[in-house]
């Protein structure tokens, strides 16, 4: 610790990342905050300061209420599902079954595909009457389901796509964590009479907790960050049933060209993400360390 960087070099090393952070994170965030207090101008309507008007409109925005409800369901649904599936796949791949290499590859494949490609695959899968899903249903004599065209199923269908896309990546983290669980801990539990299920829940799962927290944070961020499939598959429809917050911001800002309200929604999103990050870091600090 007694070796110090020359002050000039330290300054240069700090300035570069800081200026990137300021240019691409802090400045836009502050700019969005400022924009949210102005209304949207155009060649026919000059922009003017409107105070809290945009926020008031936000409070009364029924569509936003639905979008937030959708986002909450989406996050609370996809995160545990993706984690559960990832653990299941990791256990399978980590087992002594044959062809685990092939399984590993096929589980990981969706992660390597771009979201837009994934969305197009699923678009075909879901197409009522002609898609694979309908054909599978018809084998069992069931009527086709209008996955994307029904308000009851569109959000769930989007969640399935996200889980499918993400679980493979999380599986890799869990696989690494599983392989780091000392074998003799499992042996010790087995000797005490624990069966496979007990060993998993008493020993393995608690040891995976740091990984679970890490994955949960990532999954939650992705739940708010990844909306490509919404844009490709449903555009938030039908009747807003699959619209998520970031998609709504995209639509308001870029399609509706309502930069002021888009900025207001962006501020809301920053606040929500900030709050979630704070809670997560608090949990991380308290619960993640063993050794």
């Amino acid at each position, binding site marked *: 610790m007694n070796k110090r960087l020359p002050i000039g070099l330290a300054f240069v090393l700090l300035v570069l990342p800081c200026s990137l952070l300021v240019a691409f994170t802090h400045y836009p965030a502050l700019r969005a905050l400022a924009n949210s207090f102005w209304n949207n101008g155009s060649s026919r309507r000059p922009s003017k300061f409107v105070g809290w008007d945009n926020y008031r409109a936000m409070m009364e925005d029924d569509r936003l209420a639905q979008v937030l409800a959708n986002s909450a369901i989406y996050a609370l649904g996809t995160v545990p599902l993706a984690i559960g599936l990832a653990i299941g796949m990791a256990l399978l791949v980590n087992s002594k079954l044959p062809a685990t290499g092939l399984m590993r590859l096929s589980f990981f494949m969706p992660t390597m595909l771009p979201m837009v490609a994934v969305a197009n695959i699923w678009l075909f899968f879901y197409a009522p009457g002609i898609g694979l899903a309908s054909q599978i249903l018809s084998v069992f004599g069931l009527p086709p389901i209008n996955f994307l065209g029904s308000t009851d199923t569109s959000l769930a269908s989007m969640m399935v796509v996200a889980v499918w896309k993400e679980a493979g990546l999380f599986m890799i983290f869990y696989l690494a964590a599983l392989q780091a669980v000392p074998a003799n801990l499992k042996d*010790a539990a087995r000797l*005490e009479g624990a069966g496979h299920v007990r060993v998993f829940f008493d020993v393995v799962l608690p040891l995976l*907790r740091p990984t679970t927290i890490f994955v949960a944070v990532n999954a939650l961020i992705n739940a708010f960050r990844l909306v490509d499939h919404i844009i490709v598959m449903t555009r938030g429809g039908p009747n807003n049933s699959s619209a998520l917050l970031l998609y709504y911001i995209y639509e308001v800002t870029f399609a509706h060209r309502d930069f002021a309200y888009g900025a207001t929604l962006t501020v809301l999103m920053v606040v929500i993400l900030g709050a979630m990050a704070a809670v997560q870091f608090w949990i991380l600090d308290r619960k993640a360390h063993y050794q």
Partner: protein
Amino acid sequence: MTQAGVSLEVRGIRKSWGPVEVLKDVSFGIEPGGFLTLLGPSGCGKSTLLRLISGLDEAGAGQILIGGRDVSGVSAADRNLGMVFQNYALFPHMTVAENIAYGLRIRRVSKAAKQKALARVAELMALGDLLDRKPAQLSGGQQQRVALARVLVSERPLVLMDEPLSNLDAKLRVEIRSEIRALNKKLGITVVYVTHDQSEALSMSDSVVLMNAGRVVQHGTPMELYRTPATVFAASFIGTPPTNLLDAADVRPPGDGAAGLPADLAGCIFGVRPEALHLVVPGAAGRADFTASGRVAAVEYEGSVFLIHVETPSGARLVLSHSGAEVPQEGDTITLGWDRPATHLFSKETGTAIPVSA
């Protein structure tokens, strides 16, 4: 307080990992309450054998009898034994109390009985103040005691220990060594102990099974192993520094001839422990049955003794454990002597011991 031990018998055990046979027809037995050590170098199969006894792995052939009952096909949990692992295998997310009581929890022991058992082992192992800690907050010695407590709480008659002291520093190792031996005596439990440290094996055990390359080399009391090594390997593995091995060409037989020695001395290897060697000063009083000469290559000071390394004309190296006042210097040519009872003879061909009659 005593937990009656059980007998253990291992008959003709074989085990292969893939094409490699790691245990080749291993047999031995131990009386209830006995302390048996499986001793051998790394890779000799001793830990594998322990896992077979525990039931964590299945043997390829042979039988294991615990208390006279063949436990082939019986799961680890149902063999009624406990095991202490090399790096303790404490559950890092559980407190000391939870670690110790884990087996009781699995077996749905009543809360009252659990508390009682916990209190008993906590007292026995002096862990009373540590029950609410997590393993990461304990020292190595404390962790070791928790691991022992976890095994003892279930009052199992047979306890297996897989190099339990290898992660501890030397001083602590000696301390816990005696604690374990005391527990064995006090509780009457049967202990099977795995180590590669021969001094640990000699100091703790009722009997030692010395293994090499998947076979039992010698099974006997520590004294038998030390005094009458069955093979060259046993002679060289037991004792610090190891037994000196000499070609017959380097040895001058006793003046009274080769009475009682095999006719073909040239086909023999002489084994002499460093502490059985002494300096023969020409012209001085004292005699030796056998002598060998050489040049002093190095002198090590060990506190109570000097270790004097001698190189014989044929290039073999001898170590003399010397406690005399006069210490030879490097480069001196000296003569070492020893007596007939201290002589171990081994066949050059087979490596097995050849009896030396007095």
